């Protein structure tokens, strides 16, 4: 039977043993990460910024679910505090102090309360988006460790003569060592991998307050293009997938998942984790819609994509690259980067594009436009508007980038409205006309990096030939490519979305819109403007300036739901049970607004394509023109 002195040594010893076991488990996991490719990591900088990244950036995401935030603060804070305090009790003056043990008992008490909060999400019924499996025993282990620890500490505070002490110590040991053991495969892996991931994050710019969303250029001379096996990912990406805590926030946000297409971001990340390690326990969350079972070989060198591999190609091509999963992920995992890396290999190395996407990508490569349309026909929408070509003049203040939407009859109306507004405000602008090629956004999202880079270089050379102060575009996809992805190809220009530019004109008094009262409008944020570029306010300010009653949808701003038009999803056209734009229009209908304001050609096309639509789809520019005409 343990005496009081030995108990005061054994108990802190247990915590040290837990730490050692956890370290061993992390080290075993780390051998797997080493299978990944090398990556430049600013270790010291990352370590120095870890507390801020955790307490500010991670907390910001976690706090969107208030319950989860409080639960996590109590349980993680309590667990850390109790464990560190107990570990310090190895020092004799502390180990012999009764008040100190009361403090430790208090910390364990807090942990126990937190553990109950953890358990309440899983028992008696589990919140559907959470995974079961090993996660179901987490509250049990936590309660065992916390209760055992609390009773042991109280026994030590009381002098240690309690008969319960050995029993409590055994309980704490079972719970504590269980938690430490779980660092390799179980739920506690997220703590270790998550902390390391925050230090070695592949996109450190995310934490500097700017949207670090540009896809990284691929070295086309590399021996292998894209990722086909886990070992093709860089080691810190493999680490980031291990940080996944299977909370399922991504799956709740994913438009493809909601539409019943065979994509579940959580499952995708878990498949990348399981693909790396043959010993990974079975996935126990919501499957890919369509109920496909996991199959295929595992291991760092096992193929990830294929009808018989872990990830079906349809899963890959269902993604709209809307970044909703990334936005919601409390572990800061970059799902879209993973999808694009896998797509790059499928497209560049295997030529395995989805059947319907072949034609647009081929036309992009050969004709500089996904529809294979003549480049000089891009300005046809402006017949009668006398659109100035930049080639005909020395310079212009604003270069208007028309984008693919110009070929579309519907979006041509928007662009006509925009051109008329620019005329009204006396803006000195010009277009590239036949010199403008597609930005290559579609090719890049579909993994055809070679075509994208080719188009980017051609466009960068075209832009360099002309003199202008900034680029204005009504296409957020073009905006994202030009603003964030073209600088890597030597084209650095200020790029402004048409809503921001029009707001500037209104604020400067160059446009004097009247008011359009008695009309309710709800604004649908384009993913590539709101999430990729953080611009959510300008279109709203414009709508407010013209006196419209603005009603927000349940999902708006940076957390808006995608229209289904990004990432080549419309051309890949993976079948689902529902259509994404139908879901989004249903959300818009819930607001009761008669008009859905849009600011992107893809959103316009997708939302206008919804059958039985009760609301009309109007671009912000069209509404503003109407107000300007009403104000005359």
């Amino acid at each position: 039977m343990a005496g009081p002195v030995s108990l005061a040594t054994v108990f802190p010893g247990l915590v040290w043993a837990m730490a050692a076991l956890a370290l061993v488990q992390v080290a075993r996991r780390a051998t797997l990460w080493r299978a990944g490719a090398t990556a430049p990591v600013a270790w010291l900088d990352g370590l120095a910024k870890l507390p801020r990244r955790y307490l500010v950036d991670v907390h910001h995401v976690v706090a969107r679910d208030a319950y989860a935030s409080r639960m996590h603060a109590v349980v993680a804070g309590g667990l850390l505090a109790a464990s560190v305090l107990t570990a310090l009790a190895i020092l004799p003056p502390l180990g012999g102090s009764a008040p100190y043990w009361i403090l430790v008992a208090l910390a364990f008490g807090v942990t126990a309360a937190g553990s109950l909060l953890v358990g309440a999400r899983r028992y008696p019924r589990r919140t559907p988006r959470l995974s079961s499996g090993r996660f179901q025993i987490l509250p049990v282990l936590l309660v065992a460790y916390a209760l055992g620890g609390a009773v042991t500490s109280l026994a030590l505070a009381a002098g240690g003569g309690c008969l319960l002490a050995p029993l409590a110590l055994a309980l704490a040991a079972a719970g504590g060592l269980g938690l430490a053991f779980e660092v390799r495969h179980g739920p506690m892996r997220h703590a270790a991998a998550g902390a390391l991931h925050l230090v070695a994050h592949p996109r450190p710019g995310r934490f500097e307050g700017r949207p670090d969303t540009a896809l990284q250029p691929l070295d086309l001379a590399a021996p292998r293009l894209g990722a086909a096996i886990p070992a093709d990912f860089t080691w810190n990406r493999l680490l980031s997938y291990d940080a996944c805590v299977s909370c399922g926030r991504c799956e709740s946000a994913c438009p493809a998942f909601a539409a019943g297409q065979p994509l579940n971001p959580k499952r995708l990340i878990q498949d990348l984790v399981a693909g790396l390690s043959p010993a990974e326990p079975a996935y126990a969350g919501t499957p890919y819609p369509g109920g496909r079972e996991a199959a295929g070989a595992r291991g760092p060198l096992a193929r990830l994509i294929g009808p018989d591999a872990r990830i079906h190609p349809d899963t890959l091509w269902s993604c709209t690259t809307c970044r909703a999963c990334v936005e919601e992920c409390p572990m800061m995992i970059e799902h879209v980067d993973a999808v694009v890396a896998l797509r790059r290999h499928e497209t560049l190395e295997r030529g395995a594009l989805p059947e319907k996407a072949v034609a647009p990508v081929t036309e992009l490569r050969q004709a500089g436009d996904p529809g294979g349309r003549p480049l000089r026909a891009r300005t046809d929408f402006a017949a009668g508007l006398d659109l100035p070509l930049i080639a005909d003049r020395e310079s212009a203040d604003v270069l208007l980038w028309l984008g693919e939407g110009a070929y579309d009859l519907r979006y041509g109306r928007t662009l006509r409205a925009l051109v008329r507004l620019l005329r009204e405000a006396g803006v000195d602008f010009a277009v590239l006309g036949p010199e403008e090629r597609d930005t290559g956004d579609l090719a890049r999202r579909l993994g055809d990096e070679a075509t994208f880079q080719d188009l980017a270089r051609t466009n960068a050379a075209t832009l360099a030939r002309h003199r202008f102060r900034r680029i204005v575009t009504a296409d957020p996809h073009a905006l994202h490519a030009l603003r964030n992805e073209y600088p890597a190809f030597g084209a650095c220009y200020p790029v402004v979305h048409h809503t921001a530019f029009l707001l500037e004109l209104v604020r400067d008094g160059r446009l004097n819109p009247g008011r359009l009262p008695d009309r309710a409008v709800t604004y649908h944020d384009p993913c590539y403007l709101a999430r990729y570029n953080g611009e959510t306010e300008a279109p709203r300010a414009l709508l407010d300036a013209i006196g419209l009653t603005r009603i927000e949808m349940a999902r708006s701003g940076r957390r808006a739901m995608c229209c289904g038009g990004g990432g080549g999803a419309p051309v890949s056209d993976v079948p689902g049970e529902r259509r994404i734009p139908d879901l989004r229009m249903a959300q818009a209908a819930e607001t009761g607004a008669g008009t859905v304001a849009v600011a992107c050609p893809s959103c316009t096309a997708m939302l206008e394509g919804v059958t039985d639509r009760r609301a009309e789809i109007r671009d912000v520019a069209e509404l503003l023109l109407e107000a300007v005409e009403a104000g005359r």
Partner: protein
Amino acid sequence: MTSVVLLSAGRHPVSGATVLPRLEAQAIRVATGLGEAVGLHAGPDADAVADALGHGLSRIVHVPVPAGADPVPALSARLAAMAPGLILAGRRGQGGDETGTVPYAVAEALGCLLIPDIVALAAGDAGAWSLDQTLGRGARRRVTLRGPVLATIHPDAPTPLPFAYGQARRGVIETVVGDPTAASAPVPAFEERPYRRRPKLVKGAPSGSSAADRLRAATGEAASGGGRLLVRPEPDAAAREILAHLRRIGVLAPPAREPR
């Protein structure tokens, strides 16, 4: 069994960029489905057809021929040396310097059979080929034959394999200098005239008949309808039948009076 795909420098119909004609990309898919396939191009440079490497070919043989020169002698000399069992080509070119007769001229020079408008192809045993030829309006004919054959691909053949940059980068272009005397053959002279749409033969619309009849009249008879089937006719009888048919549909003038 290696097959050879004839490659030409086409142009994109809209952008005018140098591209691999779609028909030849389809031919590559058909050829690689059978086994090893090699591309063959005669022209001033091979960059124009390098895209074929991304569509499934791993090797292209390039015979340099000056710009504007007739590629047929160089192609047939090279093909005679390679002696493939199967040669595939597009049924027509796409915007380059072509007349659409290269496959026919090559087949003539090699003395092998030419089967036009193929949509599918299978290899039988001992050098036999089974080719599915399209006759238009969905009609198909299976041709089975033995020995080396040159076939041209119809647009109804399976769509091309998507371009894969990684594969294109790994492909090899082998430059083989051909026989200089063959390469310097003069270009056959031809006459250039502005394009004029061919007049469509319109039969009198059968008024009062059924909609199906009117549709048939508007679209022409089905390929299988009408006509007479002659099996192994005498050449004279066959020629008389053809002439009679051409006169019936008005392509040839009625027979002249008997010479005095």
